[in-house]
């Protein structure tokens, strides 16, 4: 048994961390928070130059053909740095969708561009304040035209194309839509985390290129989300770790009543709990990474486990990091809220904790029925 990343993978991780330390100190997300840029273009360029956007893309499509464990290493560091870039939308969602369901032609058309960062892709599912289901998708795909409205679409204001979930006569389907083309209106919307831009995207007969089998879009979306869940979870884990490090550092240096606040059990035990949640999340996330890399049948369960534990850990760490900092912690000028905002955003982008818990138990029930059946047979 070797339940750990390889030395090479760890080196890549260190490389990513060192790069982000210098290229993405918290002043960078803060710049996006306070300014009008949708994302940090120079940081995005740096990430592209390091070929992180091509890690999971095979060489024949212009990628560097590493595995998912490598991508997980990078994801964890991007999360730690609260990086304000469209990496997750373009890599975890758009690239993965095309890798999973794209025709040879589509792969040739999009993957090299995605790898080279010449195209930014995203995934458009949500239609406002409702839980998306296979049945309630109001966006339509008819005769190669997409009509409807998606809200919010992550990076929808900056992406070049989106993979849109739309209902066709055959059922839910995925369509690739050029967001710069005709029949598309989009406007940025304010979210809980201004360091990651989102948009309301309106489609009025926008040309949509079918991705995967028509009518099988929902199953496809599910498997794309399972895979993406692991990668988002790695980002959540990185952010959660960053909160713990901040809290520990502050608790050692900040004095009250003549002693470091870290010597008070109210703080010590809070941070011990933070550490424990992070370690449990880490174990679940690594398991998800293993399942993703090895294409194991455990993936749906492992992905849900990673997603749930990382969401819970980051929620706890980001809110109690503020609490540990006291007054300064809830000021706009302090960095605590960058993590608190990102934590909430990441917990929602693939659907809420509630949905993922339900999803986990559903898979576990299937497993149990399966093993019961096979036992009976």
């Amino acid at each position, binding site marked *: 048994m070797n339940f750990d990343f390889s030395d090479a993978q760890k080196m890549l991780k260190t490389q990513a961390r060192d790069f982000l330390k210098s290229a993405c100190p918290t002043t960078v997300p803060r710049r996006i928070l306070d300014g009008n840029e949708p994302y940090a273009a120079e940081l995005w360029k740096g990430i592209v130059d390091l070929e992180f956007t091509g890690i999971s893309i095979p060489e024949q499509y212009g990628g560097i053909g590493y595995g998912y464990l490598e991508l997980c290493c990078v994801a964890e560091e991007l999360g730690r740095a609260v990086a304000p870039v469209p990496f997750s939308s373009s890599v975890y969602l758009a690239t993965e969708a095309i890798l999973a369901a794209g025709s040879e032609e589509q792969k040739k058309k999009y993957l090299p561009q995605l790898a080279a960062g010449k195209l930014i892709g995203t995934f458009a*599912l*949500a239609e*406002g*304040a*409702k*839980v*998306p*289901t296979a049945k309630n998708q109001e966006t339509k795909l008819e005769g190669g035209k997409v009509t409807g409205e998606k*809200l*919010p679409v992550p990076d929808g204001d900056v992406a070049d194309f989106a993979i849109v979930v739309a209902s066709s006569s055959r059922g839910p389907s995925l369509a690739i839509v050029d967001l710069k083309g005709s029949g598309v209106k989009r406007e940025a*919307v*304010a*979210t*809980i*985390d201004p360091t990651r831009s*989102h948009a*309301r995207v309106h489609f009025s007969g926008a040309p949509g290129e079918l991705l995967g089998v028509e009518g099988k879009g929902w199953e496809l979306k599910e498997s794309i989300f399972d895979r993406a869940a692991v990668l988002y979870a790695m980002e959540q884990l990185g952010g959660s770790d960053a909160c713990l490090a901040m809290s520990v550092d502050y608790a*050692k*240096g*900040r*004095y*009250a*009543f*003549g*002693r*470091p606040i870290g010597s*008070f059990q*109210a*703080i010590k035990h809070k941070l011990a709990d933070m550490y424990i949640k992070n370690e449990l999340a880490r174990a679940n996330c690594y398991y998800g990474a293993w399942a993703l890399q090895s294409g194991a049948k455990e993936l749906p369960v492992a992905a849900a486990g990673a997603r749930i534990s990382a969401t819970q850990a980051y*929620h706890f760490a980001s*809110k109690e990091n*503020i*609490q540990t900092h*006291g*007054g*300064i*912690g*809830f*000021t*706009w*000028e302090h960095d*605590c*809220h960058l993590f*608190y*905002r990102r934590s*909430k*955003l990441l*917990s*929602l*982008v*693939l*659907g*809420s*904790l*509630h*949905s993922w818990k339900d999803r986990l138990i559903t898979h576990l029930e299937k497993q149990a029925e399966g093993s019961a059946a096979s036992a009976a047979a």
Partner: protein
Amino acid sequence: MDFNDTQQESQYRQQVRTWLDANAGGLKPTGPSVFDAQTRRGEADYVERAKEWQAKKTDAGYGVIQWPKEYGGAGGSQMQAIIYREEEARYEVPAGVFDIGLGMCGPVLMMYADEATKRRLLPSMARGQDIWCQLFSEPIAGSDLAGLRTRAQRDGDDWIVNGQKVWTSGAHYSRYGILVTRHDPTMAKHKGLTFFWLDMKSPGVEVKPIRQISGASNFNEVFFTNVRIPDSQRLGEVGEGWQVSITTLMNERLAVGTVGAPDFKEIFALTRRVALGDQPAIKSAAVRSRLADWYVEAEGLRLTKARTMTRLSRGETPGPEASIAKLVGGVKQQEIGSFGADLLEQAGAVLDSDVLPGHGMFQQAYLASPGIRIAGGSDEILRNIIAERVLNLPGDIRVDRDVPYNEIPTGKG
């Protein structure tokens, strides 16, 4: 046991209602309250309207009901004040602007100022003409207030004050403030403090707003550069500043308290409105379970307050209920805000209520609640207070007692 007024009480309540119907700006819309991000946009108007309303109340004998007439009060009872507050809460009137002045500064002046000063300052405070603020916390002294550093040095009949205060609500529209300073850093930390009231327009006082996570600016930093304060404005003896501050904070514990919306009412309404799967979210057992937890907490706080009111009406002094209200209420609001956002799945991230009409309140609460858990006594400090003052458990081991202030370790600060 009953929730009814005594005959006198109900007569008074009736009288209050009649007056409010005639003079207040109409009833509040019922149903879940709408969240107010409280940016400083339009704040000046708000303060003006608050002053007018306070003056009107005062003329009608509803200003500061429980204060003696000679200090601008109505010479009424504690219970009448409570009844008035209950009734006023149902109307659309500007509130909150005078809480610190009337709740903390007034009482401390009554205890420590000389008669002349009281007759000079309290009536204009009661009438809302002069707003007061409280200058206590410092960057280095939050939970550990007595660790404050702001220096007051004697200079003839005056004191020269230098330093910085923080988390001062309303400093930017306050006419006066109460201030605790350190006059001798070589004495033990609790012994070297001296307390004053001052004119916020004094030369050398500079006020800067603090922006919170939520985007709101409810607080200020206040900088003191060679600010002159006459010794006649000292409250309590030289070196008695800690006792004076404690009396003030006791009043704060009562002033602080009930955390606003969103609370059970709002999350209950949301779960009936939004769908989870094929049915309203409230039909999910998971949602019902959380709702029930919040309901009994919210009811527990409402009814604990009712028990306090009962004690007040008997002239007893209330206990630590206010601490409980803030401690439980702050965490509750953070959970409710987070949960409310989760119910909308991806759309839960949207903050802008123009984009998603009827939403945004829970997201705002998610951003505002961390402040509630810290301001006016952090969760941790409140637990200490309950453990030590209510349960009489021993205090933390202190390493900062009986040591000259300037020899107490401060780390990086």
